[in-house]
C-alpha cells in the first residue's frame, strides 16, 4: 500500500499539471471510456481512432525535447521515418512468425535512438543550440526524405525489401502477438486499438515519473538557464543528449505504429509538412506539459480530419491560423490555458467549500 502510494506521489510534481484525487479520478473516467469505446463503435471508426493515438508519441517527443528541454527540434520526423522504414525492412525480410514483429518494433525504435545518439552527440557536444538546432534537425529530415524519394530503382533494396522511392514501402505485416494456438494479428481495428492505448498509458505515466524526478528537474533547469545549470555542476550536454535520444525513441514508436497500422510508409512522412504538423499540435496543446500535449494533439488531429472533408488545403490553412491564434492568445498553449483555468476554478471551489 505504501509502495503504491509512493508511486502515486512520484507521478505528481511541479513539472506536471494535474494532481490529487480530482485529477486521477478524471483520468480513471477517461481511461474507462477509452477502454469501453470499441464496444460501442465499429471496427473502421476504431481503426481511425488508433490513427490519432499513433501520432501522440511523436507529439510527446517534442513535448519533452522542446517543451521541457527548451531545444526546438524540427526533425522528429527523421526518427519517425527511420523507425518506420526499419520496421518495414525487418518484417519484410523476416516475416511475422514467433512474435518477430514485436522484436522488429524494438529494433526499429532502437535504430532511431542510435541515430539520435550520433546526431545528438554532434549537436550538443558541438554546442549547437537555439535556432541552429532547428535548422540542423530540419535539414536532416529533409535530406532523408530526398534520399528515400530517389530509391525507386530495383537496385535499392535491403534483403528482399524494395525501398520503392517516392511510392514508399508497403505490404509489411501488422504487429502480431504470438499466442498458443493462433497468433493474434493486430489489424487496424480493435486489437491494435487496445495495444496502442495500453502503450500510450504506460508511456504517459512513465514520462510523468521521469519529468518529476531529479532528472526532469535538470531538464527544465537547462531550458530556463543553461549557464546556471552548468554552474550547478551538471554536464548539460549529457542531459540534453539523453532527452534527445528518449525523444527520438518516442518518435520512432510513432513511426513503427504508423507503418504497422497502414502497412505502408512513404518518404513524405519525413517531409516538410509532416515535420511541421507535430509542432502545431504541441504548440496549440501546450508544449510544457505532458497532459496538455496528449489532449491537444488528439483534439487538433480530430479537428483536422473533420476539416479534411472540405479539402485538405483548407485543413492546412486552418492549422496555420490555429498556430497564429495560439501564439497571440495563449503562447503557452490553448489546452494548457484551459487546464490552468480549471485548476484555479477547482481551487476556488474547494476554498469556498472548506
Amino acid at each position, binding site marked *: 500500500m505504501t509502495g503504491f502510494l509512493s508511486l502515486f506521489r512520484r507521478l505528481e510534481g*511541479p513539472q506536471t499539471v494535474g494532481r490529487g484525487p480530482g485529477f486521477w479520478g478524471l483520468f480513471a473516467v477517461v481511461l474507462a471510456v477509452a477502454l469501453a469505446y470499441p464496444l460501442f463503435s465499429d471496427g473502421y471508426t476504431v481503426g481511425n481512432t488508433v490513427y490519432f493515438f499513433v501520432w501522440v508519441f511523436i507529439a510527446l517527443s517534442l513535448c519533452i525535447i522542446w517543451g521541457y528541454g527548451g531545444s526546438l527540434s524540427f526533425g522528429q520526423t527523421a526518427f519517425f521515418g527511420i523507425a518506420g522504414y526499419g520496421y518495414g525492412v525487418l518484417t519484410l525480410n523476416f516475416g511475422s512468425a514467433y512474435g518477430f514483429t514485436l522484436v522488429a518494433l524494438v529494433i526499429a525504435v532502437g535504430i532511431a535512438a542510435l541515430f539520435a545518439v550520433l546526431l545528438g552527440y554532434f549537436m550538443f557536444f558541438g554546442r549547437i543550440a537555439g535556432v541552429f538546432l532547428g535548422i540542423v534537425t530540419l535539414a536532416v529530415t529533409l535530406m532523408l526524405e530526398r534520399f528515400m524519394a530517389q530509391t525507386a530503382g530495383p537496385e535499392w533494396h535491403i534483403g528482399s525489401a524494395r525501398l520503392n522511392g517516392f511510392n514508399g514501402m508497403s505490404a509489411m505485416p501488422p504487429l502480431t502477438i504470438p499466442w498458443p494456438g493462433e497468433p493474434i494479428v493486430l489489424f487496424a481495428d480493435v486489437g491494435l486499438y487496445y495495444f496502442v492505448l495500453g502503450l500510450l498509458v504506460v508511456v504517459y505515466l512513465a514520462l510523468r515519473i521521469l519529468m518529476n524526478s531529479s532528472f526532469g528537474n535538470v531538464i527544465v533547469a537547462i531550458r*530556463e*538557464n543553461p*549557464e*546556471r545549470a552548468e*554552474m*550547478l*555542476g551538471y554536464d548539460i550536454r549529457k542531459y540534453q543528449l539523453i532527452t534527445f535520444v528518449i525523444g527520438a525513441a518516442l518518435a520512432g514508436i510513432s513511426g513503427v505504429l504508423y507503418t504497422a497500422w497502414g502497412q505502408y510508409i512513404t518518404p513524405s512522412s519525413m517531409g516538410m509538412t509532416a515535420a511541421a504538423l507535430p509542432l502545431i499540435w504541441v504548440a496549440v496543446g501546450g508544449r510544457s506539459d505532458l497532459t496538455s500535449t496528449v489532449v491537444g494533439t488528439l483534439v487538433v488531429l480530430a479537428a483536422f480530419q473533420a476539416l479534411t472533408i472540405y479539402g485538405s488545403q483548407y485543413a492546412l490553412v486552418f492549422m496555420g491560423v490555429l498556430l497564429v491564434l495560439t501564439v497571440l492568445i495563449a503562447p503557452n498553449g490553448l489546452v494548457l490555458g484551459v487546464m490552468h483555468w480549471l485548476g484555479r476554478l477547482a481551487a476556488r471551489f474547494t476554498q469556498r467549500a472548506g
Partner: protein
Amino acid sequence: MSLLELRELNKHFGGLHVTNAVNLTLEPGEIHCLIGPNGAGKSTLFRLILGEHHPGSGDILFAGENITALKSFARIHRGLSVKFQVPGVFKGLSVRQNLEIALQSRHRGAELEAEIGRLLTFLGLESEQAQTAGNLSHGQKQWLEIGMAISLKPRLLLLDEPTAGMSPEETHMTGEMVQRLNADGMTVLAIEHDMAFVRQVAQRVTVLHLGQVFAQGSIDEIVADERVAAIYLGQAHA
C-alpha cells in the same frame, strides 16, 4: 597551499586586452574583494576562473591542481561556485524548485526537504518559497542565487556584484551572510562596487584596471591610495 592561484593570465577579445598578465593568489579562509571601474575586466576574470572563457595564456590552479583545461561543470565539482552579475535564477520555476535543483545532487528525500528549509531560512525567503523566481525583487533574486551557489558547499565562492540593486539594509544583511559563510570555512572572492560592503567584509582588496592588477592591500590602504582614487575619478569625468 593557496586555494586559488592565477598565473600570468591573458585574455583578448579581438584587439581588446581584457585580462592582462593577471597574477592573483587567494588564501584559504579569506574574504577577498575585487574592485575596479566598469569594463576593467572583473567579470571576465570570473569567467576565466569558471571555464566559460579560456585564457590565451597563463594557468589557473585550484587547491594546487591545474584546472585551466577543465570543463566548467568539472570545476564546480572541484569546489568552485558562482553567483553571476545578472542574477541567473530559473525564472519560470518556484523559489523552492530553484533550491531543490541546486541541492538534489547532494541530498535525497527527507534530508533534501530539510536542507531546502534550512536554506530558505538562511536566505530569509521562507514566505516566498512558492513564488515564481522571476517575480522576485532584484535583491531577492540575488539572495536566491547566492543560496543556489552555496548549496553546493563550495570551497571557493565567487560573487559578482552580490548587492547590486539592494538597499543599504539589504546590503548589510548580505554582508552578514557572507561573513557567516566565511566563519564556516568558505573562502569568498567578491566583485563589488559598493564600498560599504567592501569595508564590511573584505580582508584584502585587489583593484583591477584595464585588465591589470593595479593595486592590492587592505581596504584602508586602497582607500588611501591616490592612484586608485584617480582611476575612479578619471572614470567619473569621462
